[in-house]
């Protein structure tokens, strides 16, 4: 519109101040975006990533209690079940200090692909996984974190089982949300027998894919019924519910994060408002003259507001861009830690971007409203009187 030129030139009236204000807002937006990736990561995990046809079966008493492996076969035969796979926690440590830094499981190689078809693993890699007993499929995040390449060999020392196993990396789960390490349960079973134990007779969790989302509830009921009064009573739940529960305890942390986000946003408002009112005060004379010439109050108001909004929106865009760039570094620093779980993914989702931009626009307008309104509202004669 025709006032664009005026608004633009007024922005650069005091280049240093504009740059400082813009810088402050930009950094605050970066911060807000980074903070928001945490709860957003959790939301995304629950709503986007969890499949609506997948459910999990585990011992009712707890995730660390196991079920007999034979139960898996019974689950597979339930009506509506397209595929089922048993997982066993290996607890393997890769790092020198013996800490487990990513979840690793012994799985049934021939069934895993059918239960997780939405995980991007090539057919060839799945075939290799079945062919090579010591094969392993790893999530992309883990590959990147340790700089592993396909074909490489990796050793994990189990903190739960009395064995160390040496694997060949044959496949990659090519997305951001599956930091898993899968290997053949046969491999572990064999290693245990060699040690003199009875092999791997248990299943820790059984993942099931239903052929129709409407059958999920029935399947869950059936499975739990089957196990009732047995040695390992099961509790089945949908994938979404499982994750919700698993990370439900992080609610307190999320609350604090949101509070701090709010505080930082408030900061932005202060800074932008301060600058806006400084600008308005300085220009009191010009504004008075413009009103005298005949510019209606709403034009004065809108141009001042546009100036504040333009600055903060532009700073917001830069901030979001910077946040997107920084998340890579953060993923390396914290990543999927035990402490943070999905909060530590630092994936800047579209939701986060929108929130960041909206915040900066909204804040700019909010901050600019009071000084602009005050400057515009006064009757022209008063404005002139104050200045001359």
């Amino acid at each position, binding site marked *: 519109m025709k006032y664009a030129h005026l608004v633009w030139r007024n922005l650069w009236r005091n280049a240093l101040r504009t740059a400082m204000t813009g810088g402050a807002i930009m*950094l605050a937006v970066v911060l807000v975006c980074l903070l928001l990736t945490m709860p957003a990561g959790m939301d995304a995990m629950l709503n986007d990533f969890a499949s609506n046809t997948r459910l999990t079966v585990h011992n009712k008493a707890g995730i*660390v209690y196991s079920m007999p492996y034979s139960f898996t076969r019974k689950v597979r035969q339930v009506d509506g079940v397209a595929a089922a796979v048993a997982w066993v926690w290996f607890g393997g440590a890769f790092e020198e200090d013996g800490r487990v830094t990513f979840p690793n499981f012994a799985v049934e190689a021939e069934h895993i692909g059918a239960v997780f078809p939405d995980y991007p693993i090539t057919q060839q890699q799945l075939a290799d996984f079945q062919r090579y007993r010591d094969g392993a499929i790893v999530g992309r995040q883990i590959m990147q974190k340790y700089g592993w390449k396909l074909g490489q060999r990796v050793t994990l020392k189990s903190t739960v089982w009395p064995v160390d196993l040496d694997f060949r990396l044959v496949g990659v789960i090519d997305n951001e949300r599956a930091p898993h390490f899968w290997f053949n349960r046969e491999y572990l079973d064999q290693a245990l027998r060699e040690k003199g134990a009875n092999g791997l007779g248990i299943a820790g969790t059984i993942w099931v894919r239903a052929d129709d989302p409407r059958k999920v509830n029935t399947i869950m009921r059936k499975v739990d019924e089957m196990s009732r009064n047995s040695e390992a009573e099961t509790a089945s739940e949908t994938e979404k519910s499982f994750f919700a529960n698993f990370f*439900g305890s*992080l609610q*307190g942390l999320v609350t604090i994060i949101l509070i701090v986000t709010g505080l930082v946003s408030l*900061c932005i408002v202060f800074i932008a408002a*301060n600058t806006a009112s400084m600008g308005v005060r300085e220009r009191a004379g010009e504004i008075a003259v413009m009103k005298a010439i005949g510019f209606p109050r709403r034009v004065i108001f809108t141009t001042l507001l546009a100036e504040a909004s333009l600055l903060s929106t532009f700073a917001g865009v830069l901030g979001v861009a910077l946040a997107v760039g920084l998340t890579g570094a953060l993923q390396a620093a914290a990543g999927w830690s035990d402490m943070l779980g999905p909060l530590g993914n630092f994936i800047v989702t579209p939701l986060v971007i929108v929130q960041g931009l909206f915040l900066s626009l909204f804040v700019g307008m909010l901050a600019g409203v009071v000084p602009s309104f005050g400057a515009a509202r006064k009757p022209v004669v008063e404005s002139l009187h104050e200045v001359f």
Partner: protein
Amino acid sequence: MALPLSYSLRNVRARPARSIMTAGVIALVVVAATLFLGLISSLKRTVAISGDPMNLVVMRKGSDNDGSSQITLEAYQAIRFFDGVARDADDQPLASPELVVQPFLRTKDGGRENVLARGVEPVALQVHDKVRIVEGRMLNPSSGEAIVGRGVAGRYAGAELGRELEFGRGRWKVVGVFEAEGSSFESEVWVDVRELANDAKRPFPYSGVRIRAASEGDLARLERRIDEDPRYALDAQLETDYYAKQSESANSLYVLVIGIAVLAGVGAGFGAANTMYAAVQARTAEIGTLRALGFSRRSILIAFQIEAVLLSLLGFLLGAVLAWALSLVLDWLLGGIAFGAETFTTNVVALRVSPSDLVGALGLALLVGILGGLGPAWRAARLRPIEALRKA
């Protein structure tokens, strides 16, 4: 000739609105930094103080925590009679065989969390010196009883004195509540070790042993002896080391938090610089007069820097008070912040802002003030007397 401190003080008081704005921005950053630092340090502290300097943690070689280890009865019987193990009044060794399991517990509002259940024998109370029963009494073996830590009590359904707690495959009657100086033991449920092993169907009754040394001198020797015993693949370490390692995984969080605080600080620095530049501009004539009177550039620079520092301190005070109040409110509202622990269980952490957190926040505030104020102070100092007077 240096400008008196009162000059800087006066200027801060002269424009209260502007000073509050700048101090306010710094205060917000201080609150954010303090809360985050407090969060992580609370977590670390909770875990770190769990370690008793006189105790050893014995686990299977290769396990990194209680929950994933197994120890045979044989091994336990052997090591408890080693030299150097403390004895009680009846000359029984203070060696506590324990089983750690992580069952689901339902929270009061219907959620579900993994909680650390520790199967113990009565000797556990003597080995874990810090643990004190504050309500009710210690559990009796083979009686289906349980005692709960302070962090557990009230958080989960049935986790109250006299009520019944459901987990695993059974029900346990809560007969006591214990405290442990705010350590992670307070997030645990203790039951009889044999009953737990039965319930969890563990082939090995114990996951580990906690041993109390007779004296400090015995610690190292005992540790080595257990480690090197050829019969059993065991690993002994100081309890303090064990928990120190666990609290280290919070270090990556420290990095994150400090990064966030720095970002916030830089942003606040820009904001503060902005206000100060405006102040310098408004006081050009005044500065020119001072220079004309003979005050050196350096004295002007220092005076403005002092002003910036005063604003930082003001912001820090505001922020510290607010953060402290906020931490109390949050702690009360949320009943402790839950974190995941190494054992896959929930560590309920009381949010406490410690002096070292405040020191960190103070450092940040000062940095923001000094760096933010540097540019404007420099500009003020560089004003030539004649120029400044002319502008007026």
